[in-house]
């Protein structure tokens, strides 16, 4: 692929003796939706933390537009265009919903001494934030403290926040879990729209229907290792995947 | 050489006293994650109650248990009325509560016991020994004996008894300990009982050793011992003892052999910052 945006090259992350991510390589193309699936504890979120700079890889390298990024802290990754959501939602609890989004809108301001002292609550920034909140469907909650939102809306807020960074890559960590059916379809549509704007999406998803439905390609992790990679229909019928997911006994049962 | 051994013996005795106070702090930090500054007031209370009962009865055998009992009650009261209700707030809220308790209790000691230094005229039932010119005073002997006994008993309770198991389990995972039938709030109170009773012993020991009991005697230990539990690794009991002994010996030797321009009490904090730069989790702390 010549328009590769993000590339993981034999990346490993060890915690003490635990190999959370073990020699994983995959690529994300521009404008692609790539699903990252695997059983609980397979290392998916660790992968996200490596890409977004929360963790530094034990070995291997990560390239963004072919520039190595390993070791850059999260805020540098954010300014390079990596936006993410968190599996365990991390709202800025006492800040209102719209302020949460503004934090991300400030990305371009935080670098300069003068620009970082400009006031944040301007008509322009509020309008930008409100547009994003409307997109994810929580504009009516703009002035509620984000800590008081139900989980579903907090997930939408996470998405709005990540979008506010105007990222080149969007990392969605189980953004759909805990949502109702109609919410899932609304946000799925949004993810597709985002992709159509040329933003690449890497998503972790447990709901197979959603994962299979949204993704152009899937990467399956198991015990930190890359188990399979391919189009949804291939993955669906891959016996190794079924076994990893459902256990041996189950694989016989299911097939 | 003789000087060196005397200094060393001294330093270990200082360290032993530190460790008796520090242990209570480490116990409390381990189970509640609170910096228990008021512990130093409990220690002062131990000295006062011990002295009072000793003056009335003339017997240390009565004074020590009485002081332990009163301090245990005091510790539990602080836990119940100040810490437990403030646990859900950021840690500096209970910390300020703790400091307020400490200051209030210092005032109570002054009002009840007077501002003057009281003497603790207990005669120790044995005399000192001299080995090859090295003088070991009865006070130092008793500090060794008492602190060794206390550490041993504490070690036994913490590692060998059901209560100790409950304490350790509660400090590592309070909810899960509860699911095993461990009554967390009772266990926490018992932790305060233990720590405070040991502090009472330390108070009496210091009172006798220096022959002084006064309202502000807790002021230095209150904060210095915080540095010690940080050096030891917050909540680690062996760490607390190790840090105390190291500091006791280190202070003594530094004063004895080097003319340092800074006072002894800031040494603990300098040591703490040095240790933190090297091992941010403390000497024996886990991650």
């Amino acid at each position: 692929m010549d328009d590769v945006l993000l590339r993981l090259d034999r990346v490993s992350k060890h915690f003490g003796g635990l190999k959370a991510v073990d020699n994983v390589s995959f690529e994300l193309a521009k404008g692609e939706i790539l699903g990252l699936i695997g059983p609980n504890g397979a290392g998916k979120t660790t992968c996200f933390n490596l890409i977004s700079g929360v963790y530094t890889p034990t070995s291997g390298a990560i390239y963004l537009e072919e520039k190595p990024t390993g070791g850059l802290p999260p805020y540098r990754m954010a300014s390079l265009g990596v936006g993410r959501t968190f599996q365990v939602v991390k709202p800025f609890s006492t800040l209102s919903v719209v302020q949460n989004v503004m934090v991300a809108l400030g990305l371009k301001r935080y670098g300069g001494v003068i620009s970082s002292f400009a006031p944040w609550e301007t008509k322009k920034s509020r309008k930008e934030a409100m547009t994003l909140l409307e997109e994810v469907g929580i504009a009516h909650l703009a002035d509620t403290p984000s800590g008081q939102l139900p989980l579903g809306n907090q997930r939408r807020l996470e998405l709005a926040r990540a979008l506010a960074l105007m990222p080149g890559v969007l990392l969605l960590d189980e953004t759909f879990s805990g949502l109702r059916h109609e919410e899932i379809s609304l946000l799925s549509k949004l993810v597709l729209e985002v992709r159509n704007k040329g933003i690449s999406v890497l998503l972790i998803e447990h709901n197979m229907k959603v994962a299979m439905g949204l993704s152009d390609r899937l990467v399956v992790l198991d015990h930190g290792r890359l188990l399979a990679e391919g189009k949804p229909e291939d993955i669906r019928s891959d016996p190794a995947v079924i076994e990893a997911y459902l256990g041996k006994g189950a694989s016989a049962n299911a097939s | 050489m003789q000087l060196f051994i005397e200094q060393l013996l001294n330093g270990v005795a200082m360290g032993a006293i530190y460790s008796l106070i520090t242990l209570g702090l480490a116990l409390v930090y381990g189970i509640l994650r609170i910096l228990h500054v008021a512990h130093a007031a409990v220690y002062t209370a131990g000295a006062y109650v011990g002295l009072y009962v000793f003056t009335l009865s003339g017997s240390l055998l009565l004074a020590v248990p009485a002081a332990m009992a009163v301090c245990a009650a005091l510790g539990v009261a602080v836990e119940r009325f100040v810490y437990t209700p403030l646990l859900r707030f950021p840690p500096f809220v209970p910390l300020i509560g703790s400091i307020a308790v400490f200051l209030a209790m210092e005032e109570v000691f002054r009002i009840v016991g007077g501002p003057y230094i009281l003497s603790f005229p207990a005669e120790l039932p044995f005399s000192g020994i001299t080995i090859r010119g090295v003088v070991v005073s009865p006070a130092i002997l008793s500090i060794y004996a008492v602190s060794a006994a206390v550490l041993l008993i504490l070690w036994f309770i913490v590692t060998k008894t059901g209560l100790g198991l409950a304490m350790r389990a509660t400090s590592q995972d309070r909810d899960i300990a509860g699911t095993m039938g461990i009554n967390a709030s009772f266990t926490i109170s018992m932790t305060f009982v233990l720590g405070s009773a040991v502090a009472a012993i330390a108070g009496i020991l210091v009172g006798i050793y220096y022959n002084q009991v006064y309202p502000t005697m807790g002021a230095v230990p209150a904060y210095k011992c915080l540095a010690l539990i940080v050096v030891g690794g917050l909540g680690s009991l062996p760490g607390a003892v190790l840090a105390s002994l190291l500091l006791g010996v280190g202070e003594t030797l530094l004063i004895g052999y080097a003319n340092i321009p800074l006072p002894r009490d800031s040494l603990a904090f300098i040591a703490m910052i040095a240790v933190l730069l090297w091992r941010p989790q403390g000497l024996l702390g886990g991650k």
Partner: protein
Amino acid sequence: MRVMKTAVLALCVLLLSGSLAFGADTVKIGLLVPLTGPAAADGTSALYSVQIALDQVNAAGGVLGKKVELIYYDDRADAKEAVALSHKLIEQDGIDAFVAGSYSLPTRAVAPIFQEEGIPLVAAYAIHPDVTRAGDYCFRNGFLGMVEGRAAGYTAHKLLGGKTVALLTSDNDFGRTLVVGFKEYAAKYAPDLKIVSEQAYPFSEKDYKPYLSKIKELDPDVIFASGYYFQTGPLLRQARELGIQSKILGEEGADSPKLMEIAGDASEGFHIVTNFDRDDPRPVVQDFLKEFRSRHKFEPDMVGASAYDAFMIITDGMKTSGSTEGAKVRDAIAAVKDYNGLTGIIGGFDEIGEVVKPVQVQVVKEGLFRHFGVVNDPELIKP
């Protein structure tokens, strides 16, 4: 927000302006003493002694036919509080003169205020040199560190016959100037006196063995151990426990009956240089001792005696000048000569306001401070 601000401000002003004193027909003398906090013991001593002085003056008919009123506040030995309270004493209470019964830091902070207002100030035991340098209204009844240091040198050399001395001082302003005075004496008057070691310990020290172990090896004739009684007491005990045989000399900070309680038998034969001689047969001393002992269940100390004198010097100045006017009282105090004080015969005050009087040397015998000697060489006691 604005509502809140004004409300709180109004409340505060209301609270502050609560207790305006009304000018009554009394002579008012102000006193600041630390009654809470770490210095509470000294403040309490000073207060008790001044109260005895007050009652004695009033029993004898007061000053200029008026009763004397004592207005005292607790300054916690804190400079900020002392500054605010001195304003309170001056404006709300309208005092005529002031007894500084507190430590150096607060006293030094308030001295310029009284100087500016023209109110005479007599410091009881604050030792910072700047107290009297604030101006001509400021006097001190206690010794400067230099004086007492020289006297200590003299005592160690002449009275105790020492040839070698180890210096072990409390590391605070007083301790340091004492050492300077001691060394000055040694350099000027006693070329045969050898200072074998010099150490300082921090104020909150409890464990003196590291220092003492060092001294023990040197085995000096005299140890000059400056410090307060709660420092010197344990120090004496620990020295004797270590088997140190040297004579030990302390200073006025150790002048408290608590010393003997703390040190026990180890205090026997301990010498101090101080400004209070309990064996002085003059009635002023013996009456005070009797009165203090009957009022309180413990022995008076040097801090109290010095505060007593500070109060008495002021009332005496009022009597001799026949006025309570600041300038006149100041002149009267400045002109004091051979005043019969509790802390000895006060020769007078020098041009800066420092007292000139003999330094007392006391020794502990059978658990009591007893007369040992006097240093009254004018060269040595000159401030």
